[in-house]
C-alpha cells in the first residue's frame, strides 16, 4: 500500500548532518496488535482503563529492576554527542529520532513522577505529564529505534537508547498497546516453533528439497537433518534460512561445512528459530521462555554442542543472554542446566557462532576451498549491529569483527572494506532491526538505510563491489527489500556462508 509512495532520500555527497525537520516521521507507526495476539502472550487485549497509573507503576517497577534504565534516566546531560549518530535521524531529519530526544520522551515522565526536581520545577527541567498523546508518541518513536546501540558507543556515560526503547515497549505492552508484528511472531514461536510459522512437516519437506538441490548441483549427498537424536551439533538458525532468498544459500553452506568436516549435526523442529523477539519488546519473561526452547531441544536431542546460524540479534541473545536466562554456558545450578552442562562438550565454546565454527575448521586445515569460484564477486562486509555492539566471538574483543572477515577472505579473492566510520563498532544498522522489519514501516526502513547505502555506493563506484555479505537474517531481508529503492540489485546482499558454500570442496 504505502510502498508505492516511498522514495529513498538522495544520497548525501559529504555526509552532512540533516537540518531538523520536526514531525517529519510523526505519523509513522506500526500496526497495533489485536486482543488475540496480545492475550496469547499475556498482555492486556486493549488499552486498560487505568492505563496511566499502570504505566507509571510499570515504569517504577522497571526502574527497580534494571540498573541501566535507572542510571540512564539520571545521567544524561544533553551534551549532544549522540544527536547525529542514529541512522533514522540521518535518514529522516526528525529531531525525535535523535537518541537523546527519543530518551527524553521517557525521561520527561521520569522527572515528573520520580524526581524531586521534576515535581517542584517541571518546566525548568523538562518534566512532562504522561498524557494519552505522549503515549502515542512513545508508540511511534519507540518503533523508530532498531535497538542497534550505535548511540551507546558515543555516549560519554554509555547511555544505550535500546534499553530505553525496550522499557518503553514493555510499558506499552503492559497497558495493552502492543506491536502487531513482534507480538504475533512471539505467539508463533510458542505455538509452532519459529517466527515464520513453518510447521514441522513443512520444515522436513523443505530440508529434503535442499538435499536434492545440493545433490543435483554438486553430486554429493550433503545432509540437512531434522530432529536427529544423538547428533553432535544442534544448529539453531533463523527460520528465514529455511526458504527465504538469499538466506537459504547460507543454510546450504552450513550443511556443506558440517559435511566437509565430518560433523554430525541436526536442526530441531522445536527450536527451529534462533531469533528471539522477546528482546525487541524488552520483556524478560518472553526472552527467557523463548530461550528455554533451545535448552529443551538440546537436552531432548542429546547434542554435545549448540551452534547458532547467521542472525544478529539471535547471536546477541545467545552469546550475551542464554547463560543468564537458561544456563546455556557455564555456571548455572538448576537441575536442567546441570543436565545440559554434563551433556555439552566443555572443549567447545557454548554456544558457538557458525562463523567461529567454520573459522576454527579453516584454521585447523579441515576445510578446502576453490576461491576462484567466487571470482565474479567483489565482496564487502556489513557488520550487523547486534553482533558488533552487543556480542562477541572468539578469544579477543575484536574477534567479532575479524572472524567473519577471516572466513570471507578464506573463500574469496576480492574483498574490500567500507569506509571506517561505517564498519565494526561504528557500523550502521541496516534500518530494519529491532522488530521494525514490517511492511507498514517501509518508509522508515528505506530512510533508515541511507547511511549504509551511502557507504556501499562509495565502494560500488570506487571498487566495483557487487556483493555485500552479512551474518544477519534481518539485514538480509531488509537489504533485499530496500536495495532497489537506492538503485541497486536486490541480489547484492547475501550471507557469509553463501560465499563459503560457493567455494567449499566437498568429498
Amino acid at each position, binding site marked *: 500500500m504505502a510502498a508505492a509512495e516511498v522514495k529513498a532520500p538522495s544520497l548525501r555527497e559529504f555526509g552532512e548532518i540533516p537540518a*531538523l525537520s520536526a514531525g517529519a516521521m510523526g505519523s509513522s507507526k506500526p500496526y497495533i496488535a489485536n486482543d488475540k495476539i496480545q492475550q496469547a502472550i499475556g498482555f492486556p487485549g486493549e488499552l486498560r482503563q487505568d492505563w496511566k497509573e499502570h504505566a507509571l507503576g510499570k515504569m517504577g517497577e522497571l526502574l527497580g*529492576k*534494571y*540498573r*541501566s534504565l*535507572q*542510571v*540512564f534516566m*539520571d*545521567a*544524561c*546531560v*544533553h*551534551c*549532544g*554527542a549522540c*544527536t*547525529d*549518530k542514529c541512522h533514522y535521524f540521518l535518514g529522516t531529519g526528525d*529531531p525525535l529520532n*535523535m537518541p*537523546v*530526544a527519543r530518551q527524553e520522551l521517557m525521561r520527561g515522565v521520569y522527572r515528573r513522577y520520580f*524526581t*524531586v*526536581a521534576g515535581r517542584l*520545577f517541571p518546566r*525548568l527541567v*523538562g518534566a512532562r505529564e504522561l498524557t494519552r498523546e505522549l503515549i502515542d508518541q512513545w508508540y511511534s518513536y519507540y518503533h523508530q529505534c532498531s535497538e542497534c*546501540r550505535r548511540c*551507546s*558507543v*558515543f*555516549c*560519554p*556515560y*554509555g*547511555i*544505550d537508547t535500546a534499553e530505553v526503547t525496550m522499557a518503553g515497549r514493555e510499558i506499552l505492552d503492559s497497558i495493552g498497546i502492543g506491536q502487531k508484528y513482534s507480538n504475533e511472531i512471539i505467539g508463533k514461536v510458542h505455538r509452532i516453533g519459529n517466527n515464520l510459522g513453518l510447521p514441522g512437516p513443512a520444515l522436513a519437506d523443505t530440508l529434503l528439497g535442499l538435499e536434492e538441490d545440493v545433490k543435483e548441483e554438486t553430486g554429493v549427498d550433503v545432509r540437512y537433518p531434522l530432529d536427529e537424536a544423538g547428533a553432535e551439533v544442534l544448529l539453531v538458525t533463523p527460520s528465514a534460512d529455511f526458504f527465504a532468498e538469499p538466506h537459504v544459500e547460507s543454510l546450504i553452506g552450513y550443511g556443506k561445512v558440517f559435511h566437509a568436516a565430518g560433523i554430525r549435526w541436526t536442526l530441531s523442529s522445536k527450536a527451529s528459530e534462533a531469533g528471539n523477539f522477546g528482546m525487541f519488546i524488552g520483556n*524478560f519473561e518472553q526472552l*527467557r521462555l523463548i530461550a*528455554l526452547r533451545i535448552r529443551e531441544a538440546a537436552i531432548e536431542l542429546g547434542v554435545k554442542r549448540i551452534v547458532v546460524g547467521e542472525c544478529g540479534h539471535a547471536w546477541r541473545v545467545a552469546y*550475551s*543472554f542464554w*547463560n*543468564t536466562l537458561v*544456563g546455556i*554456558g*557455564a*555456571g*548455572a545450578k*538448576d537441575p536442567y542446566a546441570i543436565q545440559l552442562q554434563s551433556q555439552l562438550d566443555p572443549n567447545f*565454546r*557454548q*554456544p558457538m557462532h557458525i562463523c567461529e565454527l567454520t573459522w576454527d575448521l579453516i584454521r585447523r586445515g579441515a576445510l578446502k576451498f576453490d576461491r576462484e569460484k567466487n571470482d565474479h564477486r567483489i565482496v564487502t562486509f556489513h557488520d550487523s549491529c547486534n553482533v*558488533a*555492539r552487543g556480542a*562477541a566471538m572468539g578469544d579477543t*574483543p575484536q574477534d567479532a569483527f575479524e572472524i567473519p572477515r577471516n572466513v570471507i577472505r578464506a573463500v574469496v579473492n576480492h574483498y574490500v572494506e567500507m569506509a571506517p566510520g561505517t564498519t565494526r*563498532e561504528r557500523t550502521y544498522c541496516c534500518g530494519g532491526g529491532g522488530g521494525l522489519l514490517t511492511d507498514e514501516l517501509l518508509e522508515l526502513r528505506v530512510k533508515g538505510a541511507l547511511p549504509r547505502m551511502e557507504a556501499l555506493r562509495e565502494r560500488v563506484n570506487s571498487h566495483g563491489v557487487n556483493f555485500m555479505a552479512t551474518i544477519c537474517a534481518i539485514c538480509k531481508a531488509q537489504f533485499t527489500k530496500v536495495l532497489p529503492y537506492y538503485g541497486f540489485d536486490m541480489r547484492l546482499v547475501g550471507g557469509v556462508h553463501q560465499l563459503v558454500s560457493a567455494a567449499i570442496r566437498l568429498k
Partner: protein
Amino acid sequence: MTVASITFSVLFYLAFAVCAGGLVVAVARYARVPAPLKIPTTPAPATRIGVIARMAREVFFFESLFKANLWIWFFGWIFHFALLVVLLRHLRYFTQPVWSWVVMLQPIGILGALAMVAGLTGLWARRFLVERIRYISTPSDHLMLVLLLLIALSGLAMKFVVHTDVVGVKAFFLGLLRLEPQPLPADPLLFVHLSLVAGLMLVFPFSKLLHAPGVFFSPTRNQVNNPREARHQAAWAAALDGKR
C-alpha cells in the same frame, strides 16, 4: 559574629549535608538496582582489569565523547579538568599547613579558572549555535552553565579585580571544619561566590550532575564481557529459574 557569618555557616553545613546525603542516596539506589543482563557495549574487555582500564579512559579522557564529537570533547574535557585543578587549588582554604603540592598548584589554578571559563563558554555557545543541541536544551541546562560560569567569574574577580581577605576566608572554613564557626569577611563578591557554590552543592544530587556518580554504574561500560564463561544473574531473575 555577624548575621552574614552565621547565615553562611548554616548554609554551608546545610549544603554539605544535602549534597553528601543526596549523593549517598543516589549511589545507594544505583548500587541496589541490579543489572539483570550482560549489556556491555562491545567490543568490551573480558576481564575486570580490562574494565577498570576502560572506565579509567572514560573518566579521565572521555574516550566515548572523543569518538563522538571533537568540539564537545574539547570544551567538555577542558572544563572538567580545569574544574578539578581549581578545586584542588581551593584545598588551601581547608588545610593547615597547606600541602606542598597544593602550594605548587596555585599558579596553575589561575590558568585552570581561565580554562574553565573558556570551556563553559564553548559548551554554552553550542547550546545556541548548533540547531540539534538547541533543540534538546532545557532551561536547566542553560542555568547550570550560567551557575558554573558565575562561580568561575566571581572567583576570578576576587583575584584580579577586588581582592578579598583570603586569610579571613581560610579562618572561616577551618572554623567550619573544626565545628567552631568563625566570622566571614564582609565582601559582597565573596558572598556571591559562596552563595553560588552552596547553590551548586544543593542542586547537585537532584540534577543531571548525577552523571558524575552515574558513569561508574553504567552497565554498558562497567560490565565484564564473559557471559559464556561465567553466569550472570540478578536475584529477581534467579527466582524464575525454578519455574521450569
